[in-house]
C-alpha cells in the first residue's frame, strides 16, 4: 500500500513537473501556463482571430470591443478596448489566460491580481506566423502548421489571382486621412510586394508615416487603395485632382469589414491579399494591355 502511494506521488510529481509550458512573451516576460487554458480573454482582434483559427473559439470567455470575427465572438462580453481594458470585468470572468498586445496598459494590474497574462503583438507577416506557433503552444494545440499552411495557401491563391497587366504597378495605400500611408516596411507593404506591386512610400519612411499629401501627386501611383469612407474626399483635396489614378478611377476601396482583413496581422491576412488581387483583376482585365 505504501509502495503504491509512493508511486502515485511520484507520478503526480512527474506530471506536475512536466506539465506547463513556459513562454517568453513580446514584453520579455516568462509566462508559465500550467495546463490547457479553458477560459481565455483576448484583448486584441488579431489574437482573437488566431485563437479561433487554432480551433479554440469555444474557450474564449471575453474579448475587447474591436474583436468582431468570427461572428460568434460578438456575443461574448466586451471588456473595453486594448488601450482601456476593464480590469474588474476581466477579473470577474476568472480567466486562466489573458491575451493582450504588448502595448496594452493595465496588464501589470491583471498580472498583479494573479491572472496569467501573455502579451503578443504581431507586427508583420513573419511575426503573424510566429504568433500562431506561440499561441498554439500556449493553448496546447498540437498542430499549428495547418493554420499556417492555410495562410500560405491563401497568399498563393492571391498571387495567382493577380493579372499579368497589374504586375509592377505603383500603389498608394492610405490607412488614415491625415494622410497616413502604409509604407513598404509595414505588413500591408509586404502584402503589396508579395502581389508584385510597387509601393510609392519606400521602406525608409517607416511602416505608417504621415506623409506630405503632395507626395502622392508627385509619385502618380497607378492605383490608389483607400477605405471607402474617405474615398469621396480624395478628389477634393487640393491638387489631388491631378492624380491620374483618381481621374481614371483606378481605385480600390474597401469597407470597414474588408479593411479588417487588410489591416490586421492575423490569420486572415491571405484573404486580405485576395481582396486586393480581386480588385486589381477588375482594374486590369485579362487580354487588355495597360
Amino acid at each position, binding site marked *: 500500500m505504501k509502495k503504491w502511494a509512493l508511486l502515485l506521488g511520484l507520478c503526480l510529481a512527474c506530471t506536475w513537473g512536466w506539465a506547463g509550458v513556459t513562454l517568453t512573451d513580446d514584453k520579455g516576460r516568462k509566462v508559465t501556463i500550467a495546463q490547457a487554458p479553458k477560459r481565455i480573454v483576448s484583448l486584441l482582434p488579431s489574437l482573437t482571430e488566431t485563437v479561433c483559427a487554432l480551433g479554440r473559439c469555444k474557450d474564449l470567455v471575453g474579448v475587447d*470591443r*474591436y474583436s468582431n470575427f468570427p461572428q460568434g465572438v460578438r456575443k461574448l462580453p466586451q471588456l473595453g*478596448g486594448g488601450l482601456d481594458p476593464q480590469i474588474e470585468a476581466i477579473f470577474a470572468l476568472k480567466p486562466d489566460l489573458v491575451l493582450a498586445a504588448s502595448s496594452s496598459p493595465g496588464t501589470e494590474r491583471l498580472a498583479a491580481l494573479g491572472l496569467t497574462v501573455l502579451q503578443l503583438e504581431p507586427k508583420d507577416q513573419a511575426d503573424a506566423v510566429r504568433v500562431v506557433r506561440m499561441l498554439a503552444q500556449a493553448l496546447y494545440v498540437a498542430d499549428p502548421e495547418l493554420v499556417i499552411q492555410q495562410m500560405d495557401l491563401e497568399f498563393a491563391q492571391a498571387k495567382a489571382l493577380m493579372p499579368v497587366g497589374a504586375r509592377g504597378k505603383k500603389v498608394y495605400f492610405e490607412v*488614415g*486621412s*491625415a*494622410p*497616413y500611408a502604409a509604407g513598404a516596411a509595414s505588413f500591408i507593404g509586404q502584402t503589396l510586394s508579395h502581389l508584385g506591386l510597387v509601393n510609392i512610400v519606400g521602406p525608409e*519612411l*517607416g511602416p505608417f*508615416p*504621415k*506623409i*506630405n*499629401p*503632395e*507626395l502622392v*501627386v*508627385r509619385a502618380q501611383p497607378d492605383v490608389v487603395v483607400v477605405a*471607402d*469612407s474617405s*474615398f*469621396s*474626399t480624395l478628389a*477634393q*483635396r*487640393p*491638387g489631388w*485632382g*491631378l492624380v491620374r489614378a483618381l481621374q481614371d478611377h483606378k481605385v480600390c476601396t474597401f469597407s*470597414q469589414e474588408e479593411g479588417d482583413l487588410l489591416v490586421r496581422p492575423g490569420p486572415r491576412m491571405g484573404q486580405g491579399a485576395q481582396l486586393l488581387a480581386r480588385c486589381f483583376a477588375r482594374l486590369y482585365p485579362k487580354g487588355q494591355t495597360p
Partner: protein
Amino acid sequence: MRDYVYQRPVVLGLLLCTATVALVLTGMLAGSTGLDDWHALGALLGLMPADADSGMLAQIVWQIRMPRSIGAWLAGALLGLAGALAQAVFRNPLADPYLLGSASGASLGVCLALVAMDGSLVAMPWLARLGLTGAAFVGAILAVAMTAALASGMAQTLRLLLAGVVVAVVLGAATSLVLQMYPHLLQSMQGFMLGSTAFVGWDSCALMLAALLPGLGLAMVLGRWLDGLALGEQTAASLGLPVQPMRWILIITLALATGAAVAHTGLIAFVGLAAPHITRRMVRWGSRHGVLLASLMGGLLLVAADLLARVVIAPRELPVGVLTALIGGAYLLWLMRRHKQGGGVS
C-alpha cells in the same frame, strides 16, 4: 522706457510682411522632396524653360503649395487677431482664442459631423467638405454663446472666464463620450485636434480671408475701445465708452475669427497666445496697431511652422501644432530673458 527691438510699429509691420512673403516664396520650393524645386519656381516665373516635369510641378505649386502657405498665414493671422482681442477684452495675459470654449465646441461639432456623415458620406460628398468646416464653425460659435449664457452676459470677466472653462471641460467630455461610442473616428479626430495645414486649398483661403478682413477692419476701427478697455471697465465707462455693447461685438469678432481658423486647420496650439506677447515685447503696444501686428505675427509664425513641418523630415510631415509651440515658445522665452529688466509679463 523699455528697450524695444523696434521703436516704430511701421518698421515691425513691414518687416513681418517681408518675412512672410519670403517664407511663402520659399514654401513654393518646399515639397515632398524637400527644398529642391528651384526649377519649378523658375518655370513658374518664366525664368527657366519648361520641361515635361515642370508642367506638373507648376500645377503642384499653384494648387497645393501656394494655397497651403497662404492658408497657413491666414489661419495664423486669424488666431493672432483673436488672441490679441481676447487678451484685450479679458485684460488677462493668459487669455487665448480658445478660452471661451470655442476650441472644445469646434471639436464636438467636427466629431458630431463625422458621426452624422458616417453612413451617408458617399451620398453627399459636398457635405463632407462643407459639413466639417461648417460644423467646427457652428460648434465654436455655439460654445461661446453657451459660455455667455452661463455667465449671464459679458459683464463680469471672472464669471465669463470660469464659465468658459466649464463649457470647455463639459464639451470636451462630450466629445470623448462620442468617440468612445464610435472608436473608428478617433484617428480623424486626432488629426483635427493636433491641427493640420496639409489640406488647405484655395476655397479655404477664400473663406478665411473673408473672415480676416472684416475682423481686422473692425479691430482697427474699434482700437479706441480696446485702449479704453485696457484701462479697466470703470475707467472705460467713465470715459463714456459703451462698455457692454463693445464687449459683445469684440467677443463675437473673436469667436468668428477663431471659428474660421479652426474650421480649416483644426486646433493649432499656441499661436493665439504667443503672437500678441511676442509683438508686445518687440514694439510699444497700442491696441490699434497692436492687433494688426499680432495678426501679422501669428500669420508669420504659422507660415514658418508649416514650412518646417514640410521640410524637416520630408516627405514625411511633422504636426504643425507641435512646431508652432516650439518656435513660438522658444522665441517668446528668448524675448522674456532679453527684457528681464523691463518688468513682468505684460
